[in-house]
């Protein structure tokens, strides 16, 4: 069993038009910038994939990573909790122009819906959003005298993930708070593609330290010195490098 992939282009080759794609990260931490940029490269070369539904906590910042994916016109719908950032202009303009659909989900509900998708739980109840606009149209049930909203699982065709170490079996570790949504999305996608800073031999990751067991991972590609969205934005970067 060898889940390692030779390069980024191969890693993103399976993503097709209209798929639902989960993208890990919280803001820039844990965002798989290189995988996203490889997907943009494919779109620039082939016109595909497009019409994507993207699940991420945010909506991109500046003109790299998720923001660049949106700016390239590849995203039809975004499912997120917080589409604001230091420089949200790419999403904001498209959203206000009606060019991109938004499903706003409270952050904890978003995390739990993704976990539920990975754990085979089609629905669960949460107190979150009860009595608010975000609960409209959702079933409400009272348990032990308190009202809860029924939320549904969230799954994806593919997840693009950033981890720290990975082995050929797909076992992963993360780096500090770059963990965030990444382990959950690994569980909830039919195909989970991970960029890691280093591919190590099986056993080099302490079995106690594995955060994502390999069963949740389909492909691992090494990206030795991954870019940080924050650094790119502070440098005024854009992707693709030749701006529109």
């Amino acid at each position, binding site marked *: 069993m060898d889940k390692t992939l030779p390069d980024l282009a191969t890693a993103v080759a399976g993503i097709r038009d209209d798929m639902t794609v989960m993208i890990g990260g919280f803001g820039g*931490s844990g965002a798989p910038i290189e995988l996203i940029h490889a997907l943009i490269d494919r779109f620039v070369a082939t016109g595909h994939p497009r019409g994507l539904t993207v699940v991420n906590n945010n909506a991109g910042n500046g003109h790299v990573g998720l923001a660049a994916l949106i700016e390239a016109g590849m995203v039809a719908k975004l499912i997120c909790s917080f589409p604001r950032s230091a420089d*949200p202009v790419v999403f904001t303009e498209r959203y206000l122009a009606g060019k991109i659909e938004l499903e*706003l989900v409270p*952050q904890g509900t978003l995390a739990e819906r993704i976990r539920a998708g990975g754990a085979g739980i089609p629905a669960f109840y949460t107190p979150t959003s009860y009595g608010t606009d975000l609960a409209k149209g959702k079933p409400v049930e009272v348990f032990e005298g308190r009202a809860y909203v029924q939320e549904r699982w969230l799954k994806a065709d593919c997840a693009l993930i950033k981890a720290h170490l990975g082995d050929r079996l797909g076992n992963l570790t993360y780096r500090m708070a770059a963990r*965030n949504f990444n382990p959950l999305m690994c569980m909830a996608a039919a195909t989970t593609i991970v960029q890691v800073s280093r591919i190590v031999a099986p056993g080099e990751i302490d079995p106690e330290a594995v955060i994502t067991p390999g069963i949740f991972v389909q492909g691992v590609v090494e990206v030795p010195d991954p870019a940080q*969205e924050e650094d790119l934005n502070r440098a005024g970067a854009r992707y693709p490098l030749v701006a529109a």
Partner: protein
Amino acid sequence: MKLSPAQMAWRAAQDITDGAYVNLGIGFPEMVAKFQPPGREAIFHTENGILGFGEAPPAGAEDWDLINAGKKAVTLKPGTAFFHHADSFAMVRGGHLDVAILGAYEVAETGDLANWSTGPKGVPAVGGAMDLVHGARRVAVMTDHVTKDGKPKLLERCTLPLTGVGCVTRVYSSHAVIDIVGGRFVLREKLPSLSHDALQSMTGAVLHLDGPVADLVVPDL
């Protein structure tokens, strides 16, 4: 005369007990962490998966994998723990946090809070606020007493889309400390220079009294 955000944060910090687990909302509430009274050790939680983090690093020393919910860099402390988002919100939703201190657009005497949407125009963003208001054991709000236009933010009923129903129990405003008890605002502290009538005129619902009102005195910050 009114309290600065730092002064409101200082006042809110005085109510945080030793050993409390605390989540501070993005923006001004983040300042509460700086004003922990000596001898008390609160442990701060951030939605993106850190418990027990330390203060901001010096400029240039940031690690962008070590940030808080406001995407600002933080630091490690002995005893810090990392976890994923589902575990993070298990802490929130499961009632394990002692206190959440959030910002507000509007607070109602019913305890309703509106802090995520200014209406149909613009881009809505909710983040973790809706989870926090129904998860933390105590939900407090830190806010200017009135809007930039001078309109009351403490109201009989919220006019903006709600974040949560009946969730807020204390408001640290720029002019007063007000509890919400049984669907009523109860004034606990006000700036000494401010008359009750003046405060009432800045407030969109009746300020009730339940015992003496203390002077809201904070250090220069």
